[in-house]
C-alpha cells in the first residue's frame, strides 16, 4: 500500500503495544550521584567542554576544550583519541576499570541543512582487538549531547549495579541512578525510557529524548554494539542505529551501564550556532536537489537503503557467500533489494538525523517475530542494511524473513550483525568440514543455512547459557581459532586461513580476494577489517585505475584520510559518494567526487568560521590517523604483524574455490607468474594453489611496503617521529615512545621491507632509515 500525506498522528505501525507501570519503574531508581552544570550556547559548532563521568569514584566533572585541542584533533573521533590518551594506560584492556567509553560529536554534527550530519563517534578499548575501536553511528544521541552542552562524553570506571546516566539538557543536570527494573534489551528498554524521561506526554516531547543502550547479548559475548535511538514521530517508536563494531556494547554492559539518556530543551535549525547559516542552507539545498533528481537512477537509497548493494555485489562476484568462499550464489536474487522493498514501510522521511534526505534508514513495521522470547509479537525492525543482508548470504540464509529475524534479535540483544554473521559463517564452514559437529557445538547443528540454529545460538547467548562452544564462539573468530587449534581439531592452516578476522575483529561483508588494493583497505587499517577506511574494489579491479603499488598506496593514503574526516566532524560518509553530481564522471578524479569534497570544505568553514581548503582537510585527518596508529603502537600493536590478513581474503583456500574461478587463477599463473599454458594444464589444482598462495602473500607484503612508505611510517608500520612532528603532533611522550619502538625494531631486524623483490622490482626506497632525512 503506497499512501502519502497521512497526518502524523494517524500513522499506525501495527506493532504490539506494551503497557508498563512507568511510575513503579522510576520509583525503583535511586540517585547515586549528580552534578549541576551551567547551560551554555554553542559557538560555531563547538560546546568547548566535554563531560567526564567516573562510575567507580562517583565523580562528574567538565573538561575544557582548548583551541590547541581543536587545532590538533578537530573534533569527533579526534577528541575521542585525545581523551583516551589522557585517561588510559598502555596496558589498559577492555574490562580494565580505567577503560574509557567515549561518545563524541564533532563541529559539524547536528547541523540539519546537509544530509548525513548527525553522527556520533564512539571509542573504547575493544575486547576483540585490545586496541582502540572507533565506530560512527547515527541517531540523536550525539547531536543532543552537544545541544545539551558537551562536545563529548567520557565514561570511566564501573558501577556496582545496573545504572542509567541521565544528561538533562533541559535543566542542566546530570544524574547517575540505579535502574533495576527496566528491560535490558534495546527495543523495549528504549521505549520505556523514552516515555519515562520525556517532559510531556507527546510525540514532540518524546522526540527530544535520545538513548544509547545495548542488550543481553552484549553481556555474554564480545560482539556487543551500542544502539543509538531516534524517536520517530510518525511510527511513534524510538528507532535505533548501531555503533556495531568491536564490542562497544560489551564495554557498556561491563561498566554496568544500562542506558545513557540525553534530553534537550529545544532544537532548531541553528542550534549549532554556525558562523554562516546562509552557506549551509545553500549547499544543503543543492544536495537535496541532487538527491531528488538523481538518487532514483543511482543508488536508490531513498527506496531501499544500502540494500541496493546486494545485487551489485552478486553481479560483480563480491557478495560474501558461505564464509567468503564465493562471491555470488544462485539463490542470491531471493535477497536482492526489491524483496526487502516489499516489506519496507514507505513514504516516511527515513533519515537517522533531521534533514537527511538520502534516507537510507529503512524499517519493516509490524514484523511478526518468529522465535525466542518475543515470538508472536509485532515489532519495528530497523533495517536490514547491506551488511546484515550480506551476513545472511555468508551464513547461506536466503530468506528475507529470516534475515529480518536475525537483524531484529541482533539489534535488540545489542550485538553486531557483522561480527555475529561473519563468525557464524566461519563456524558453519568448520561444521561442514567436520572440524565442528553437533557435539562440539553444544548441540547446535550449525550447518550452512540452518536459520533455526542461528537464532537458537543468539537466544542462548542472550540467556547467558554458556556451554564450552557458546562461551568461546561468542568471543569471535580469533578466540575460536585458538580454541579449535588447541583442541587439535582439523588442520591449523585451514582454520587460520578460513576464519575472516584481522587484529581480532571480524571482516565486514565484501569479498576482497581479487582486489589487492581492497585487501589493503581491510588489513592496513587502524581498528581492523572494516570497509570504512577505503573501498577500492571498483577502482582497482573493475576500472583498473590504480595498477601499480605506488598508485594503490596513494589510494590507501588518500581515501583512509578522507574518510577519517567524516568521523572528525560528526558526519556520515554516504552523502559524499552514494549520490554523485550529474557531471561527476567528467571530472579529473571522479572517485573523489570533487564537487562534494568542495561542499565539505564550505560546510566546515560555514560552521566554524575558519578558512580551510581541501588540503588542510586531509591534514586534519592525517594528524588523528597517525595519532591513533601511534596509540596502537603504544599498546603493543600497530605493526606489520598486526596488519596481516587471513588467506581467505587474499585467494582461494580450498580447491572448490580455486575451481570456481579457475580461468581467472590459471590466467594469473600464466600472465603474472610466467608459467606456460601447457604446464598450467598439467599440474594439479593443489600445486597451482600453492604457487598462487606464495605469490599473493608476497603481493600483500609489497603493498604494505608501499603504503607504509607513503604514509610516512617505518617498514614495520610505525609512524615516524619526523612525520608526527611535521603534522604538529609533537607531544614529547608519544614522540619518545615511537623512537623507542623504532629502536627496538632496528635491534630486532624489523626495519626491512616485507616483500621479496626480484630482478627488475624495486622496493619504495633502498635507503636505510629513510625517515631520518625527512
Amino acid at each position, binding site marked *: 500500500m503506497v499512501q502519502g500525506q497521512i497526518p502524523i498522528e494517524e500513522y499506525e505501525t501495527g506493532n504490539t503495544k506494551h503497557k508498563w507501570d512507568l511510575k513503579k519503574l522510576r520509583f525503583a531508581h535511586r540517585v547515586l550521584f549528580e552534578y549541576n552544570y551551567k547551560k551554555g550556547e554553542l559557538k560555531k559548532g563547538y560546546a568547548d567542554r566535554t563531560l567526564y563521568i567516573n562510575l567507580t569514584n562517583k565523580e562528574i566533572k567538565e573538561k575544557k576544550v582548548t583551541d590547541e585541542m581543536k587545532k590538533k584533533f578537530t573534533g569527533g573521533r579526534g577528541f575521542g583519541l585525545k581523551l583516551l590518551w589522557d585517561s588510559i594506560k598502555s596496558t589498559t584492556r577492555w574490562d580494565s576499570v580505567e577503560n574509557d567509553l567515549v561518545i563524541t560529536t564533532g563541529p559539524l554534527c547536528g547541523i540539519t541543512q546537509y544530509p548525513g550530519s548527525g553522527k556520533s563517534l564512539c571509542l573504547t578499548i575493544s575486547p576483540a582487538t585490545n586496541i582502540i575501536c572507533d565506530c560512527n553511528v547515527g541517531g540523536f544521541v550525539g547531536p543532543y549531547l552537544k545541544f545539551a552542552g558537551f562536545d563529548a562524553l567520557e565514561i570511566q570506571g564501573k558501577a556496582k549495579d545496573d545504572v542509567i546516566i541521565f544528561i538533562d539538557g533541559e535543566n542542566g543536570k546530570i544524574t547517575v541512578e540505579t535502574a533495576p527494573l527496566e528491560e535490558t534489551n534495546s527495543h523495549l528498554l528504549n521505549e520505556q525510557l523514552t516515555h519515562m524521561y520525556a517532559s510531556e506526554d507527546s510525540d514532540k516531547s518524546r522526540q527530544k529524548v535520545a538513548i544509547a543502550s545495548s542488550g543481553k547479548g552484549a553481556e555474554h559475548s564480545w560482539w556487543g554494539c551500542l544502539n543509538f535511538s531516534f524517536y520517530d514521530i510518525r511510527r511513534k517508536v524510538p528507532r535505533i542505529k548501531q555503533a556495531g563494531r568491536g564490542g562497544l556494547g560489551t564495554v557498556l554492559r561491563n561498566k554496568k551501564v544500562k542506558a545513557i539518556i540525553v534530553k534537550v530543551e529545544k532544537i532548531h*535549525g541553528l542550534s549549532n550556532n554556525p558562523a554562516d547559516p546562509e552557506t549551509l*542552507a545553500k549547499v544543503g*539545498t543543492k544536495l537535496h536537489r541532487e538527491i531528488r533528481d538523481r538518487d532514483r537512477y543511482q543508488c*536508490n537509497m531513498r527506496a531501499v537503503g544500502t540494500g541496493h548493494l546486494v545485487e551489485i555485489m552478486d553481479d560483480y562476484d563480491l557478495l560474501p557467500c558461505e564464509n567468503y568462499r564465493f562471491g555470488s550464489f544462485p539463490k542470491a536474487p531471493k535477497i536482492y533489494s526489491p524483496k526487502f522493498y516489499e516489506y519496507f514501510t514507505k*513514504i516516511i*522521511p527515513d533519515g537517522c538525523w533531521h534533514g537527511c*534526505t538520502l534516507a537510507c534508514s529503512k524499517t519493516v513495521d509490524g514484523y511478526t517475530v518468529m522465535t525466542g522470547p518475543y515470538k508472536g509479537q509485532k515489532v519495528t525492525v530497523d533495517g536490514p542494511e547491506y551488511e546484515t543482508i550480506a551476513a545472511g548470504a555468508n551464513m547461506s540464509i536466503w530468506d528475507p524473513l529470516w534475515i529480518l529475524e536475525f537483524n531484529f534479535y541482533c539489534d535488540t540483544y545489542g550485538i553486531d550483525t557483522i561480527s555475529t554473521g561473519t563468525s557464524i559463517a566461519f563456524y558453519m564452514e568448520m561444521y561442514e568440514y567436520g572440524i565442528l559437529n553437533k557435539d562440539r557445538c553444544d548441540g547446535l547443528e550449525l550447518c550452512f543455512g540452518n536459520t533455526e540454529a542461528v537464532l537458537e545460538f543468539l537466544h542462548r547467548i542472550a540467556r547467558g547459557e554458556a556451554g564450552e562452544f557458546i562461551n568461546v564462539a561468542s568471543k569471535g573468530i580469533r578466540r575460536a581459532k585458538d580454541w579449535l587449534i588447541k583442541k587439535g581439531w582439523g588442520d591449523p592452516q585451514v582454520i587460520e586461513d578460513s576464519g575472516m578476522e584481522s587484529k581480532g575483529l571480524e571482516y565486514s561483508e565484501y569479498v576482497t580476494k581479487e582486489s589487492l588494493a581492497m585487501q589493503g583497505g581491510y588489513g592496513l587499517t587502524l581498528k581492523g577489517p572494516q570497509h570504512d577506511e577505503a573501498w577500492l574494489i571498483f577502482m582497482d579491479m573493475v576500472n583498473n585505475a590504480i595498477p601499480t603499488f605506488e598508485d594503490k598506496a596513494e589510494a590507501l593514503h588518500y581515501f583512509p584520510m578522507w574518510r577519517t574526516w567524516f568521523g572528525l566532524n560528526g558526519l556520515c560518509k554516504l552523502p559524499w559518494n552514494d549520490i554523485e553530481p550529474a557531471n561527476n564522471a567528467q571530472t579529473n578524479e571522479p572517485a573523489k567526487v570533487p564537487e562534494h569534497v568542495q561542499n565539505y570544505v564550505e560546510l566546515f568553514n560555514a560552521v566554524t568560521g575558519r578558512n580551510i581548503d581541501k588540503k588542510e582537510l586531509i591534514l586534519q585527518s592525517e594528524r588523528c590517523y597517525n595519532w591513533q596508529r601511534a596509540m596502537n603502537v603504544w599498546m603493543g600493536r600497530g605493526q606489520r604483524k598486526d596488519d596481516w590478513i587471513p588467506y581467505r581474503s587474499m585467494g582461494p583456500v580450498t580447491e572448490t574455490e580455486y575451481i570456481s574461478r579457475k580461468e581467472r587463477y590459471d590466467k594469473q599463473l600464466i600472465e603474472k607468474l610466467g608459467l606456460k599454458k601447457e604446464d598450467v594444464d598439467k599440474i594439479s589444482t593443489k600445486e597451482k594453489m600453492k604457487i598462487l598462495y606464495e605469490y599473493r602473500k608476497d603481493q600483500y607484503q609489497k603493498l604494505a611496503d608501499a603504503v607504509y612508505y607513503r604514509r610516512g611510517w617505518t617498514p614495520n608500520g610505525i609512524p615516524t617521529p619526523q612525520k608526527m612532528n611535521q603534522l604538529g603532533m609533537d607531544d614529547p611522550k608519544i614522540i619518545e615512545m615511537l623512537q623507542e619502538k623504532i629502536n627496538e625494531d632496528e635491534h630486532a631486524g624489523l626495519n626491512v621491507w616485507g616483500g621479496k623483490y626480484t630482478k627488475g622490482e624495486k622496493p619504495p626506497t633502498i635507503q636505510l632509515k629513510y625517515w631520518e632525512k625527512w
Partner: protein
Amino acid sequence: MDKPSTVKILKFHPEKCDGRLACEKACSQVHFKSDEGGEKSAIRIIKVGKSYKMHVCDQRGLCIDICPVGAITRKKNGVVWLDKNICIGCQACVGFCPIGAMRKSESRIQPFKCISCGACVRACPYGALELVEVKIDDIKEIVYHKLGK
C-alpha cells in the same frame, strides 16, 4: 478528523498584469512584515518576453511527507502549512519541491510558502490574481520513490 477535500490555489491572468509587483510586496508583508517583495515573497511574477508568468505553490503537498519533524501539515481549509516554530530548518522541503515553490529567504533559516491568504489578490489593482477552489485529490502528490527494480 474530517479531511479537507478542496483547497484554494492562486490563478493568474497575465493579460491583466502590469508588472509592478504589488502582489509580491503584499506577500512579503504577510511573511516578513516587509514590503520588499522579491526574495521575501512566496509569490513571484516573472517577466517572460512581453508577458508575465506566476511562480507559486500549488498546494500539492509533496513536502508534507518529507518533513522530519512534522512541521508541514494540510490545514482544515486544505492549505499546506509550514509551522515555523516546529521547523528545524533542514531545507529538505525546499530541495524536494518539484517546482521550487518552497522558498528560503536570507533573513531566517525556516523556509516559507504560499498559504492562499489572498493578500496578493487584494493588492492587485487590476484583478490579475484570483483564488480558485480545486479538489485536493486532483493535485495531491507524494514523495517520489522508485518502486523497487
